[in-house]
């Protein structure tokens, strides 16, 4: 099962000064309020955050419900916007692998992959003994998911007190937080190029296809950054 000591260590790591908890909570307060406004009930709102636990996907679902898009459309749009979780998983899980951990645990633990937990883990994995990294990760993920679900509930109940300007204010917090995160990740040529080219190509490819811009733009930018970095000794 899960090692309690490392689970708790992971769980409380969300308290750090550079923790994504504030940005995470604010964004899910906005999602909770949005769910209420488009007619979801409280159970559906909790269910959605708990099961999806990926902000852009939830936003797309909400927008699709408003315009009455088909389930196939929702599926494709969400898959495309959340496909970033694939490289995120591949760039994290090899660090957590240990032969003593059962395979099934990885398939359940990957549900916690979201940018907030991912960042905490990337910062802290070296300080955790390899054998228990997966347990630590489950702790980090559970804490973040708990914040997300609680914030959704809070947002749902205060929806009536939030005016348009406040909703707009809440919506900028997450992008600003991640802009800061991305800038502080720019420590090598490779990372700097990945961030800068990702931004530029994400915008350029939007003019070709708004749906595919994140995937195609991100793939092109990341691959270019990797090769240029390798040629220049990272």
């Amino acid at each position, binding site marked *: 099962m899960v090692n309690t000591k490392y689970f708790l260590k992971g769980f409380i790591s969300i308290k750090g000064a550079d923790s994504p908890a504030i940005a995470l909570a604010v964004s899910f307060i906005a999602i909770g309020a949005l769910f209420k406004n488009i007619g979801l009930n409280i159970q559906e709102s909790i269910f959605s955050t708990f099961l999806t636990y990926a902000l852009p996907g939830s936003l797309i679902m909400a927008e699709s419900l408003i315009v009455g898009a088909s389930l196939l459309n929702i599926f494709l749009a969400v898959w495309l916007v959340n496909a970033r979780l694939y490289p995120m998983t591949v760039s994290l899980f090899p660090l957590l692998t240990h032969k003593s951990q059962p395979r099934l645990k990885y398939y359940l633990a990957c549900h916690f992959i979201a940018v907030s937990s991912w960042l905490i883990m990337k910062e802290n994995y070296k300080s955790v003994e390899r054998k228990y990294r997966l347990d630590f990760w489950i702790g980090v993920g559970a804490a973040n998911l708990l914040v997300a679900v609680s914030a959704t509930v809070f947002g749902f109940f205060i929806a009536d007190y939030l005016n348009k300007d406040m909703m707009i204010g809440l919506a900028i917090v997450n992008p600003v937080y991640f802009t800061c995160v991305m800038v502080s990740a720019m420590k090598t040529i490779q990372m700097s190029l990945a961030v800068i080219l990702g931004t530029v190509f994400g915008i350029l490819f939007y003019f070709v296809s708004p749906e595919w*811009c994140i995937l195609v733009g991100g793939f092109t930018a990341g691959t270019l950054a990797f090769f240029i970095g390798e040629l220049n000794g990272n």
Partner: protein
Amino acid sequence: MAIDIILAILVTSFATYISRFLGVITSKKIKENSKIFKWFNCLAYSTLSALLARLVIFPAGALAEVDYLVRFIVVFICLMIFLISKKNFVYPTVLSALFLAFLSSIF
């Protein structure tokens, strides 16, 4: 409508979980010191940046109601605050909401 919402939530969750699940399968064969691992790290940061650029420049939802220039100014000022405050994450995130709520109520 109620059934539709539940179905939409399930479809959204499934579409999201696929990428995580495939990521675990791919991870099995990848060593953390390999070039492929480094490449995926670049891909993770570049796709996140691409998503971020899209959220700021071509937003959906509430943000779309604010002028592009206002959004850009708020992100830029907050980034400066972040750099000046020796990379403190709390000031820029809290101030960003106040700035934008204030600016969008004026313009």
